[in-house]
């Protein structure tokens, strides 16, 4: 391990420490929160802010353009893919009713027009719950 030799290294260390702390909070939130949506809220913190901070710290410490571009690519992938996967998981969680309704303040999907009959979407799972009726 090299020694700390400049201000940039100190900034990189601070970024790495804060990113690691965000990963720790993600673990704590995953363990302690009550349902899928709130666990996802905790679990996606390191996916964006934590990974961005750690990539910035690594880019400061490592030298060379190819490494910097690869780290930038990882950060861009995270920023692009985290909302998509979170949207998919939360949509399925709502439909499988893994949601603590008693903890929700506002349930805009539940207070909409009648959702009981017919197909509600374009997924196979959105079909008529009792076909052939």
């Amino acid at each position, binding site marked *: 391990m090299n020694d700390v030799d400049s201000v940039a290294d100190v900034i990189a260390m601070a970024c790495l420490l804060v990113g690691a702390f965000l*990963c*720790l909070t*993600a673990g704590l939130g995953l363990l302690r929160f009550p349902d899928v949506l709130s*666990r996802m809220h905790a679990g996606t913190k390191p996916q964006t802010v934590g990974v961005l901070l750690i990539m910035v710290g*690594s880019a400061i410490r490592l030298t060379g353009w190819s*490494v910097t571009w690869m780290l930038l690519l990882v950060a861009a992938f995270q920023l692009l*893919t985290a909302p998509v996967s979170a949207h998919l998981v939360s949509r399925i969680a709502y439909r499988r009713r893994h949601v603590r309704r008693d903890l929700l303040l506002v349930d805009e999907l539940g207070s909409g027009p009648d959702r009981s009959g017919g197909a509600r979407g374009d997924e*196979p*799972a959105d079909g008529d*719950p009792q076909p052939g009726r």
Partner: protein
Amino acid sequence: MTVVSVLTFAMLGVGVLLALVRLALGPSLLDRVVATDALLVIISAGLAVYAALTRNPTVVPVLVVVSLLGFVGSVSVARYIGGMLLESAADGQDTPTGGARP
């Protein structure tokens, strides 16, 4: 320097352990998906921290692969669960103890 590396890896390790506990306990499959996603992200963060602390860029291409694989994994599992989704009985929401009603 050593203090920073010990602190960073300790926090990452505790985060991984807590995510593993949620992966083992998780009452529903989606809890496990979320825990696996966070686990992969923390592991890739650990690889990046290792590369940064040792100034050794060998593992950086692995980060690109891991970040893409995590996305593909969680999306495919979520689509799979959505495909086998059936309307559950009554208003079967999760019970306050965390388990799902059948």
